[in-house]
C-alpha cells in the first residue's frame, strides 16, 4: 500500500452551471488509489460520489465545471487534458462500468461489435483477433453460451448478462484502474451477488486497482480495502474498511452503519381473528400473437397462491423482480382481475363489483414503492390526502376534512403547514410519509405496503420502517409487506412468503425462514442479501 498511487484526486470541486444558477456537487474531495487496491466511495443519493467517479475520465456533460482541484492518473493531470490524451487512457488504462446496464449499451449494435471496438481502437487488432479475444472475455465474465451470444443485441440479454458484457468491455485492455459506478444497484440480489463475486475474482486475477462507488455498506464491508464516506459533496471520513466499520469517527458514518433496519416483530396472538384470507389466487396474463391476436399462451404472474392474515399481523412477501409479488398484492386489493377466492372480515370479496367494493376500500389501503410516482403532481398534498375523505365521507365539512388532514400529517411527522404545497417540493422520504398519511387518514384496518422503502436511501428507510411499526402498534394495523429487500422484511414481518416465478417457494414464521430456510432458493436469497462471501463458492461463472 505504500506504493506510488496510480490515481490521485486532490481537492476536487465540481460545479454544474444550470439555468437556475450554479450548483456545487463536489466540494473539495481528495483521495488516492494504489495499485491493486480497492477503494469504496460510499454515500447516499446527492453525496456527489457518482459525479466524482465520472470526473475522473471527464465523462460529465458539458455543464460541469472544475473550478479547483486535480485528478492525476499515473502522475498525469486529467483535468483539462487534451482530448487525444484522454482517449488513450479511457477504456485502455482506466475503464468504467456503469450503473445502468439497460441503457449503457448501444441498442443498434451487437455486443461483439461493441466489445471488439475497444480492442481495435486501443490494441489495433483486426476483426479475427478481436473476435477471439471477445470470446475469451465473454467466457471469463461468465456469459453462458458465449459463442452464440456474440451476435446478440443488448435487448436480447438479461440485465445481469448485459452487466457482464459491460465488464468484459471494461476488462478488454486489462486496465490499471477499474471504476465501477454502482454496478449492481439495478440488479436483483442473487445476480448482484454473482456480479460482485465476479468483480472480486477478476480484480485479483488482473491485479487492477478498483474504485467502487456504492450506497450499500454491506458490499463495502466485503470488498473494499479502504472506504471514503461521502456526504453532500464532501468526504466526511476515510480509512481502512476494518477501522471505519469497527470504530467510526464521524457521526454520519455511525448513522449509516446503524441504518440497517433492526428489530423484529412478534406474531399476534394465536386466537387473533382472521382479517383477510386468499385461496388459490391466480393472475394469468394472456400472450397474444399471430395473425388475429390469438391467445398463444399465458404468463402465470401469480399461480395459485393462498395466504391468511390475522389482525395485527405483518406478512412479508419476498421475491426478485418478476416473481409476481406486486401482482399478488394488487390482486388481493382487487386492483386487477384475478381468479380465486378472497375473503375480508369473513365476507367474500372476489365477486364484488367496483361499487360494492367502494365501502371496503377505506378499510384496505395501499402504499406504493415510487414516492415520485404515487402522488399526482398537479394536486397539493392536502388535496391528495383529502381525496379519500371526499369519497368515503361525503358529508364531512371542509373544516372537519382539513382537521383530519392536519392530524394525518402530524401522525407521519410532516409539518401540516406545508399542506398547500405540491409533491415535487418534498424529498423522497417525505413523499412516502405523505403517501402513508393518505392511507392512514381513512383509518384503515389493512395496509398493503408494496416496496414502500425500496426507492429510499438506507437512513431514510429506517425512519419509514420505524414509522410503519409505530403506526401498527398504535392502531393494531395488519400489513401485507411486499419487498425484495430481506433486511427490511426481517425487521417488519412476523411471517414470510418467498415467491419465485409466480409461485410460493417457502412459507413460514419469519424466524424460521431467516434462520432455518428449507429451500435452496431461500438460502441463495439470504446469502446474497446478508453474506456475500457465501456465494463465492456457489457462483455461476
Amino acid at each position, binding site marked *: 500500500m505504500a506504493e506510488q498511487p496510480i490515481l490521485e484526486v486532490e481537492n476536487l470541486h465540481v460545479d454544474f452551471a444550470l439555468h437556475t444558477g450554479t450548483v456545487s456537487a463536489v466540494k473539495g474531495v481528495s483521495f488516492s488509489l494504489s495499485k491493486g487496491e480497492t477503494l469504496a466511495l460510499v454515500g447516499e443519493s446527492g453525496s456527489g460520489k457518482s459525479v466524482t467517479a465520472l470526473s475522473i*475520465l471527464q*465523462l460529465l*456533460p458539458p455543464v460541469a465545471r472544475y473550478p479547483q482541484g486535480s485528478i492525476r492518473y499515473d502522475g498525469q493531470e486529467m483535468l483539462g487534458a487534451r*482530448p*487525444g490524451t*484522454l*482517449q*488513450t*487512457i*479511457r*477504456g*485502455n488504462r482506466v*475503464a*468504467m462500468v*456503469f450503473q*445502468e446496464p439497460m*441503457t*449503457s*449499451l*448501444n*441498442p*443498434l*449494435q451487437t455486443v461483439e461489435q461493441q466489445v471488439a*471496438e*475497444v480492442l481495435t*481502437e*486501443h490494441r489495433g487488432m483486426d476483426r479475427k483477433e478481436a473476435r477471439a479475444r471477445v470470446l475469451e472475455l465473454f467466457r471469463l465474465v461468465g456469459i453462458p453460451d458465449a459463442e452464440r451470444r456474440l451476435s446478440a*443485441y443488448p*435487448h436480447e440479454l438479461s440485465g445481469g448478462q448485459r452487466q457482464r458484457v*459491460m465488464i468484459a*468491455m471494461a476488462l478488454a485492455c486489462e486496465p490499471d484502474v477499474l471504476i465501477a459506478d454502482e454496478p449492481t444497484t439495478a440488479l436483483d440480489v442473487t445476480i448482484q451477488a454473482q456480479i460482485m463475486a465476479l468483480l472480486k475474482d477478476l480484480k485479483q486475477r488482473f491485479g487492477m486497482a478498483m474504485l467502487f462507488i456504492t450506497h450499500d455498506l454491506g458490499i463495502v464491508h466485503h470488498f473494499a480495502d479502504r472506504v471514503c464516506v461521502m456526504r453532500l459533496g464532501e468526504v466526511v471520513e476515510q480509512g481502512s474498511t476494518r477501522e471505519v466499520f469497527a470504530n467510526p469517527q464521524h457521526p454520519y458514518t455511525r448513522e449509516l452503519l446503524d441504518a440497517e433496519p433492526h428489530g423484529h416483530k412478534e406474531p399476534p396472538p394465536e386466537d387473533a381473528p382472521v382479517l383477510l384470507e386468499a385461496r388459490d389466487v391466480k393472475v394469468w396474463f394472456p400472450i*397474444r*400473437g399471430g*395473425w388475429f*391476436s390469438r391467445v398463444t399462451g399465458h404468463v402465470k404472474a401469480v399461480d395459485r397462491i393462498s395466504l391468511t392474515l390475522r389482525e395485527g399481523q405483518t406478512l412479508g412477501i419476498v421475491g426478485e423482480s418478476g416473481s409476481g409479488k406486486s401482482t399478488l398484492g394488487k390482486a388481493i386489493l382487487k386492483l386487477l382481475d384475478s381468479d380465486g377466492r378472497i375473503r375480508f372480515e369473513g365476507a367474500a370479496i372476489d365477486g364484488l363489483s367496483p361499487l360494492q367494493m367502494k365501502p371496503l376500500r377505506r378499510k384496505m389501503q395501499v402504499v406504493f414503492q415510487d414516492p415520485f410516482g404515487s402522488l399526482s403532481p398537479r394536486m397539493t398534498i392536502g388535496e391528495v390526502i383529502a381525496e379519500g375523505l371526499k369519497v368515503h365521507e361525503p358529508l364531512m365539512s371542509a373544516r372537519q376534512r382539513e382537521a383530519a388532514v392536519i392530524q394525518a400529517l402530524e401522525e407521519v411527522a410532516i409539518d401540516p403547514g406545508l399542506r398547500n404545497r405540491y409533491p415535487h417540493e418534498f424529498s423522497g422520504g417525505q413523499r412516502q410519509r405523505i403517501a402513508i398519511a393518505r392511507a392512514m387518514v381513512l383509518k384503515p384496518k389493512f395496509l398493503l405496503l408494496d416496496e414502500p422503502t425500496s426507492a429510499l436511501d438506507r437512513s431514510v428507510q429506517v425512519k419509514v420502517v420505524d414509522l410503519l411499526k409505530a403506526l401498527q402498534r398504535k392502531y393494531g394495523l395488519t400489513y401485507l409487506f411486499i419487498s425484495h429487500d430481506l433486511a427490511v422484511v426481517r425487521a417488519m414481518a412476523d411471517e414470510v412468503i418467498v415467491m419465485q416465478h409466480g409461485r410460493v417457494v417457502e412459507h413460514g414464521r419469519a424466524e424460521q425462514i431467516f434462520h432455518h430456510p428449507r429451500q435452496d432458493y431461500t438460502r441463495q436469497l439470504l446469502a446474497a442479501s446478508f453474506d456475500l462471501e457465501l456465494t463465492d463458492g456457489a457462483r455461476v461463472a
Partner: protein
Amino acid sequence: MLSYAFKRLAQSIPTLFIVITISFFLMRLAPGGPFDGERKLPPEIEANILAAYNLDKPLYWQFFDYLGGILQGDFGPSFKYKDFTVSDLIWAGFPVSLELGMWAMLLGVVFGVSIGCYAALKQNTRLDYLMMGGAMAGIAIPNFVMAPILTLVFGVYLSWLPVGGWDSGAVANKVLPVIALALPQIAYIARMTRGSMIEVMGSHFIRTARAKGLSERKVVRRHALKSALLPVVSYLGPATAGIITGSVVIEQIFGIPGIGRYFVQAALNRDYTLVMGTVVFYGALIILFNLVVDLIYGLLDPQIRYDD
C-alpha cells in the same frame, strides 16, 4: 422479417381499398350525381362514360367494375380531355412529378440531416440559433409563398433562372421548383435531426462510447448517428405525402406539366374521373412508400418486434 413484410403488405391492401371506396362513393354522393352532371357533356364522352361505368347497372356492379378497371390500370376516360383516358394523363405527368419529387426528397434528406447534426453538435452556439431560426422560417413560410418569392427574385429581378415552364426537363427549369419543394422538408428534417441527435448524445450508451476512448468524431459517426437518424427514417413516409402535396402547388405556380397540375385543373373543372383517378393513384403511392419506409426501419432497428 419476411413474414412481417407480407403482413405489412397485407395491411396496406385494405387501406388502398378504403381509399378507392371513399373516392368512388363520394363521387356518387355528389349533388345531382357527377355523371348526369350539371353541364351538358359532349355526346361521345357521355356514351363513353355510360359504357365505362355501366350506369344502367346497379351501384355495387359499377363499383366492382371500377375496382376491376383499376386493377388493370384503367381509371376510365377523362371528362374534359376527350381523347385521353385518365391513365394516359397520369402516366404523362408522373415522370415529371417523380423527378421533381425525388430531387426534392434528396435535397431534403441531405441538407436536413447535415444541418440538423451540425446544429446539434454546436448546440446553443450562435450558429445553432441561426440555423434553427432558418429552419423555423422554412416551416413557417409555406411553399406557395416561397415559390413566388424565389421566382420574383431569381427569375424576374435577377433573371438568372426561368420564371416557369418545363422546357422538356431542362436543368435550369428544375432548380427553382425543386428548391421551393425541398425547403420545408429541409427545415422539418433539420429540426427533427437536431432534436434526436441532442437526445442521443446525452444518452448512457454515448457515455459508454466515450469511456471506451473513442474520439468525439467516432462517437458521433459510429454510435450516435444511426440512432439519431431512426426518427428521420420514419418521417420519410409523411415526407413523401408532404412532397406530393407540395408538388401540386409548385407545379401549378411554375406551370410544370406534372400530375399535380392536371389534378388542380381537374378539380377546378370538375373533371370527376381524373380527380378520382389521381386520388387513388396518389393514395397507392403514399401507401407504398409508407410500406417501404416501415420495412427499412425494421432492417435498421434490431429492437423492432415483428410478431405484432
